């Protein structure tokens, strides 16, 4: 595995002892935020462009089609909106950010602490509405904004322009992840070991399947179609496995059936592999497989149906991204990259 050291990050500012860093993609550029500094590495550039940044970069969101990224500081309640070209724009938020997603170039942020959904337009204007309860997750599907409050167990649907709520669904509480695939919403519930699905259009039709021992993170590998189910991957650190399961499909009960196939080994990721010694708890799709992360060790893995392989260590939970060919990760304040190669 060939690794490329891209550049040495500056030392952390003396005032900020925090070590957190965030890596996120902005189109073809990679944005690397460390305390006090934001670096934007454009494709082909030998050196990144550096800008003053956030004191406590915590997490990011990407709008790759618009070459935009957002880096959040959840301590000082700020966001840096970074374009692949140009200077990052720092926006002070009225509420504390918990999670975010882009719809086009518009950023939607939920604040669990303030119980709000915030919209930040491309011109920087900030509008917010009270949500039902305290949303901790936000997901965009079919140009509609969905939030999930894990404490009260409420999914809420919002119009992205008016921010008007168009429905709520009281559902399972204490979820650790919320994803959507265009037709269905999925919740990982670690306490019950279940993954829950529901219809986004009708906000009902709750179905449940066994999600391994402790499902923590879900990713939609392939969205569901009218006739064909999608595919989900589920990180289950208690089983040290990443499960693959057929997602929901309209009018069918394939969700449960799909998972059963997963359990008996069909479509199960790397069942014989022992390269996940502590399991993984964060996953995202990348280059025909998954990037998977173990928060306890900071180990980053690449997992394909054939094998799993550790590609980095000492990585921050929000400190990795990929650009289609390479994974970028921050370790010890330094940005590295590794080729993901081609494997199907």
């Amino acid at each position: 595995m060939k690794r490329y050291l891209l550049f040495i990050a500056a030392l952390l500012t003396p005032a900020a002892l925090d070590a957190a860093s965030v890596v996120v993609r902005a189109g073809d550029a990679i944005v690397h935020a460390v305390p006090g500094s934001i670096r934007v590495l454009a494709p082909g550039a030998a050196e990144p462009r550096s800008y003053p940044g956030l004191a406590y970069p915590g997490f990011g969101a990407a709008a790759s089609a618009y070459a935009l990224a957002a880096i959040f500081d959840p301590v000082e309640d700020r966001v840096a909106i970074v374009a692949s070209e140009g200077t990052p724009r720092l926006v002070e938020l009225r509420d504390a950010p918990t999670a975010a997603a882009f719809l086009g170039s518009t950023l939607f942020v939920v604040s669990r602490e303030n119980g709000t959904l915030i919209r930040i337009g491309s011109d920087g204007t900030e509008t917010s509405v009270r949500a039902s309860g305290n949303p901790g997750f936000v997901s965009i599907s079919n140009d509609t904004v969905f939030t999930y409050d894990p404490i009260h167990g409420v999914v809420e649907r919002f119009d992205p322009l008016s921010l008007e709520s168009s429905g709520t669904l009281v559902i399972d509480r204490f979820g650790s992840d919320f994803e959507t695939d265009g037709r269905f919403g999925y919740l990982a519930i670690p306490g019950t070991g279940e993954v829950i699905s529901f219809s986004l259009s009708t906000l009902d039709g709750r179905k449940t399947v066994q999600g391994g021992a402790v499902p923590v993170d879900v990713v939609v590998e392939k969205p569901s179609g009218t006739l064909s189910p999608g595919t989900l991957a589920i990180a289950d650190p208690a089983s040290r496995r990443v499960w693959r399961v057929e997602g929901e499909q309209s009018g069918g009960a394939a969700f449960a059936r799909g998972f059963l196939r997963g359990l008996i080994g069909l479509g199960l990721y790397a069942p014989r592999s022992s390269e996940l010694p502590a399991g993984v708890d964060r996953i995202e799709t990348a280059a025909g497989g998954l990037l998977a992360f173990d928060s306890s060790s900071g180990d980053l893995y690449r997992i394909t149906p054939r094998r799993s392989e550790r590609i980095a260590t000492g990585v921050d939970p929000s400190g990795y991204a990929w650009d289609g060919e390479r994974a970028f990760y921050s370790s010890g304040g330094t940005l590295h990259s590794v080729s993901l190669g081609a494997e199907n």
Partner: protein
Amino acid sequence: MKRLVVLFLLLAASSLAAAEPRLTSDYEIEIARRQLESARTSREKIAPHLNLGDIRAARHETDAANGHYNAALRIADEMAHSARKRADLSSYADAVTYRAAALAKLGRPGDARAAFEEAIRYRSDDPSTWNLYASGMRVAGLPEKAEAAARNAVLLAEERKVTAKAVLDVAIYRYALAGAIYEQRRDDPEVGELLAAVVGTLDGPELAKVRERARDQEIFEIFTIVRSDEDALVSLLNRALLLLGRHHEARGETVAARSAWERVLRMREDDPAALAGLARLATSPQEISQRYLRSLEANPWSIPQLRQYEAFAESPDAPRPEGSSAGAAMQRAVWLLARAREAEASAEIDRIADAHGERPATIYLAARAAVAMGDGEKAEALIGRLEDLPEAALLRRAMAARSESRASSSEILSSLGSPVVDPSSDLLIGLARLVSESRSPAELAQIDALLFQGIVDLDEALSRDGSTTVFASGTIEGIPFRFSVPVAFRGDLSAGEHRLAFRLAGIAGATLLVEPLELMP
């Protein structure tokens, strides 16, 4: 184990603890040490490390405190890694919560928040995790985030209120929420409602057996580390009543505030925070002074309490504190400083340090004396030893203001001609301070030669016999002044406005010392 840390963090993180820290006794250190020594597993070692760290931090022993926090962090990291290898996600979530608490205490709010967020991925249904999240955010100085986390803790705990332990937990979480709100909005009625509910719960039938056991075991000490439900009940009741008193005080509800603090004193008659609260509410100078004395006798080394007394000591009515206890001596040192009698104050502080050892509180007073005497080098050396305290910045600001005002007063002095007619209050104070501080005979001679004339408002005469009237004090330009001895003026004069010719003799606290020359028509 986790519960002990939970309550401790809750108490240690409270704004009340910061504003009115209690004397952390050697006994409590001993308890935590024994807890650490008897700990067999890594998990059991984390709580005493965090507890010892907090006790050391409360004593301003930052290096020792950070040593314990770093030890807790290291153990928590090992525990998290090992738990994940064993696929024990419950232990993993515990370990990450401890890690987050240690990071918060080490002053790493971003990393602490990330770790708390990691913990609640697995434990968003657990009120104690949310409560620790709240405590961590308060330690990190983020009360609005603490409030949100504390609300989740209360909500979830209320759903499972079935056993006495759970009832006590709800009271703990409500207290934490009240503290987080109080830190942002002292007079928010929700604070009073929450604390009244806490006191009601602790007094209520569900905890009758715990109260009974506390009585049987004669538990009366207020601990920062609690080892049992009985300890927790007694300590929590004390804390809740103290905070309730502060909240009522902030709302101007003095009767309710007094009632809360008096109940604390019925449980423990030497509680320094309750005594200080009652001192703030007292109206006669003698009672105020006496209350502060009792409060300082209970904890002579509390800088926040000394600072509260400082505000009162400035008053000309503040009686000279008498007595030989450490608290009385500390109070006297502050009183002397307020009267610009720095040399006497320094001697008093030296005597205290000789008898009881040097403490941050004695260093603070010594630094104040050095600043007041304009001894920048000594002041800087002393302030350097208080770097972890907010008072360090305060003293530095005072030092800068003092040298600025001195430089400008010297400059003004050289431009003044005599007599100075209707001097401003700033000029009078600046020159009076020069008289008190100047080591330059030339400057003193210059000030001595200056005559002033201004409208004074004389206080009631001390006596009059028809041909003379004796006055001792008054105000000029809003500044109180007094003569060094009562002075008899010719004529039967009334109190009120007169034009006075005078010389400046110095300043004592906020009172000018004036040498009268003539009452002018």
